[in-house]
């Protein structure tokens, strides 16, 4: 949420927040969300399936959001999209500009437009080979759609408001020497 709508919410002083920090120790603001009623969760799954037939549901819970899934092990909601770049930096993620180098386990960040606001995040779970010579590989993504379920989907298959621009980040390390 933009700059502290609710004073102190999600901060270290908020007893409802869980202790969550980056590798460098920077506090990550987070807010825990209640579960939705079962009938509402069921409806969410039906509605999303109705809109996107190619999606596969992995799990349905409202207690974490997409950033919470990627950066907080599904324990809480990270509610400030502006924090994501700090997390990526502190956690030693590097932007992968060459799509050929994107691999399973890397993080995809969606933006409202190619250079717009960060709107969504997920994890690459499958790299699909190029359909033809000269074409790029495509990726299957696992991401939590707000409170409406954790879905396996093609990288391009999201609600338009979840973003059209995509960037890939990786914290992969290699053994040197």
């Amino acid at each position: 949420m933009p700059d502290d709508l609710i004073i102190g919410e999600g901060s270290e002083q908020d007893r409802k927040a869980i202790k969550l920090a980056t590798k460098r120790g920077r506090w990550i603001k987070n807010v825990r969300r209640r579960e939705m009623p079962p009938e509402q969760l069921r409806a969410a799954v039906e509605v999303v399936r109705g809109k996107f037939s190619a999606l596969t549901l992995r799990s349905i819970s409202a207690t974490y959001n997409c950033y919470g899934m990627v950066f907080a092990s599904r324990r809480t909601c990270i509610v400030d999209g502006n924090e994501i770049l700090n997390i990526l930096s502190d956690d030693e993620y590097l932007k992968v500009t060459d799509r050929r180098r994107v691999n399973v386990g890397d993080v995809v960040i969606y933006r409202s437009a190619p250079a717009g606001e960060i709107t969504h995040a997920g994890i690459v779970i499958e790299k699909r080979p190029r359909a033809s010579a000269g074409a790029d590989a495509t990726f299957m993504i696992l991401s939590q759609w707000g409170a409406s379920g954790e879905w396996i989907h093609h990288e391009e298959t999201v609600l338009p408001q979840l973003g059209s621009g995509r960037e890939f980040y990786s914290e992969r390390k290699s053994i040197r020497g």
Partner: protein
Amino acid sequence: MSIDDRFPEIEAPAFSAVVNAASTLPVFLSIILAEPSFQRLVEDTLDDMHAPTKILERIRSLSEVHINFEYENPHDAALSAYAWALHKVSPDTARIAAERITSAPNTWWCTQIAARLLREPNLSHSKTATIQHFAVNVVTNIYVEASKAMHTMPWTFVSQGRVQLHRVVKTLNAADSCTDAAWNRHRVVPKPQSSTARSQWVANG
């Protein structure tokens, strides 16, 4: 269609499912604004002068619905949409809506939207001064100082008599009327009126 006919669309599980795909408030608001059912709600609210009152009443009744406290409030998305629709159409009413939706238990978006709406300066309820008249088309915008921040608003908004101002700091106009209006904290000092601008600034504070 009447505004009452729009309520079932906003309160439908489909609406909640779609808007709850958002992870943050800006995305939530962008999804809401793109939803056809929300757009229809706003359009109908603009067309019906009684609609804001009806929406407020709907907010009140939904806020009081008994819920299972183990779970999030199932009306969270609808209450948020109603408050945001009022924000688009009738900002003063939206403040009342914001206060009401905070009374609904176990909400997620309502809390954030209410905080955002209530954080906006309450221009209408300032007690220090009122602009009561306004004949001109010359003044296009004015800067006003609310309790904390500086804001610009259209002159037409002021000339409808709907806004009470804490202090007018400056007007922006095509001619030379009313620029650098000298106001002190509780009293307006009228500026000599030009021939093209016959605004009368009256303080009642």
